């Protein structure tokens, strides 16, 4: 996991010069996912990262999100899994929290997320990067009107209690080093 995070660091001229159109044996989905991976690695969005889980399958990614500064989630890190459908990007990827995340719009048991852009408000121009950024901001600004975790929504207004509950469930993710 350290490796994934470090891949966010800007790489000076890490990329070889690429010539225009090579042969494209891969499908357009693979191509798009590869391009997104490139963008994620080359950009310097703070606190988010994602990478394919295994060498063999580009459709299954793992990512991390750091809690935004100035929120109760500041300094906490969450692991998520991203599963792309074969018709991506026409359909949204399936995303869930792998680390327990106490949040009004996250199911504490399954890790399921209630976020409109991951369901009916999905658009083909969204990308992993925009999703991770949206999730990051969702951490600090939950939609308490339609909670997946009603308990969390109920105590959102008292940050002290919320933080206590949050930390009760929180598990640091650094114990898995082999990924």
């Amino acid at each position, binding site marked *: 996991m350290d*490796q994934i995070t470090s891949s966010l660091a800007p790489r000076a*001229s890490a*990329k*070889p*010069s*690429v*010539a*225009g*159109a*090579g042969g494209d*044996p*891969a*499908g*357009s*989905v*693979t*191509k*798009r996912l*590869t*391009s*997104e*991976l*490139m*963008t994620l690695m*080359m*950009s310097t969005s703070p606190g988010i990262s994602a*990478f*394919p*889980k*295994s*060498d*063999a*399958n*580009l*459709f*299954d990614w793992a990512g991390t999100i750091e809690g935004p500064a100035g929120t109760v989630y500041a300094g906490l890190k969450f692991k998520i899994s991203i*599963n792309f459908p*074969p*018709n991506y*990007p*026409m*359909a949204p990827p399936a995303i869930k929290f792998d680390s327990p995340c106490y949040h009004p719009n996250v199911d504490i048991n399954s890790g399921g997320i209630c976020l409109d852009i991951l369901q009916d408000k*999905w*658009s*083909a*121009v969204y990308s992993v990067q925009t999703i991770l950024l949206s999730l990051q901001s969702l951490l600090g600004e939950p939609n308490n009107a339609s909670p997946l975790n009603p308990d969390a929504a109920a105590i959102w207004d008292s940050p002290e209690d919320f933080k206590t509950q949050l930390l009760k469930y929180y598990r640091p993710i650094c114990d*898995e080093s*082999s*990924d």
Partner: protein
Amino acid sequence: MASMLDRLLAQDISDSTDFPDDTTTPGLRAFDDALRCSICRDFYDAPVSLNCGHTFCSACIRSALPEQPQCPTCRKPATEVHLRKNVAMESAVQAWQAARPLILRYAQEEQKRKEQPAMLPHTRHEPNPSGRAGRKRRRLDSPGPSASSDDEAIAIPSSPVPSGSSTPDISPLPDLVACPICQKDVPSSSINMHIDSGCKRYLSEGSASGAPLPDAAKSKQKQQWSRLLAGSGGSAPSKGGKGKGKGKSRATPDPLSDTDAEQHLPKVAYDIHPQKRIAEMLAAWDLPAHGDKAALARRHARWVVLYNANVDRAARQRRTLEQLRQDLRRAEDAEGRGRRVVVEDAVAYQRANKAAFARLTEAARPKKPAAAKAGSPGPDGAGSAGAEADGQTRDGRPTPVPEVIDVDEG
């Protein structure tokens, strides 16, 4: 993980971050980005615009609209009838793709120079590399070696090739267009600069003297111009060619205009047709008819998208029906491959990922040992995925855990 990275980098997928940032080469990265479809992230292929002005590849937006009838970028309601060809964008993309390798090389040289301020003195006095790039490209673009005899026209300055430049492998741009003002032939990529220079510069080498061109080439240019000027004139470019106030009015019909009149295929409501009828529709285009009804419908819908996107290409960019069939086949293959985990050397893969397997096994065991055993797909997962996985892969979503455990045990 590292090998994945290597493989990806070796795939030659270009993106705008190939270029240095704005401090080194202002605007280049944004320019490269502006010529890319925000759905597929590649350069526009048969670009089409919606009412809101947002542009996408024809195939991309035709695949996206059935899912959601709105512009993917701004969510304004949209349907396929709103799509209009964006021919200006198409020529811009073509020109940029031809110019890009060279520009990229100069951009990277520029970056290197900025990174190392202590260089040999003579390199500092070299002219601006972007200017050199422009001149060089024109030289490469010009079709013939014949020199210009026109006095007022500053044709190609015969500047020495920059030292140490291996001539890049750029295919010359074949598309010359006649300038609407001076009637001379100009590479279409430079036409705007040519007009801006008061018709004095950026002429193509071979034709500056006004030597008469063969009819076919001339009418082709006329057609190109009519297309550029007609803007969204979707279906009948031959009509746009007349009355554009050209000096000589040539009535020669362009041979390409016949094929250009191709119509988009209508969309089919597959639910109301029996499987046999859909198979007939596929057979009419010489397409395979294996699979269940859903597979047939998917294949035909994909064919309609590919076909209609092909109609949106400029006539000389169009692919043949046989090429389209290959595209369809490739797309179907790729979709199958995406679902399936291809492991070429099972033993090596197993060894390399032993730790991960062990961890996954540990993670899975206490929860549902029975399910893991029952769910394991037998010999499938142990390396023969390529041969057997065809049937199961399309709809089913094999969770990685049982499969991986299977590899671990076998």
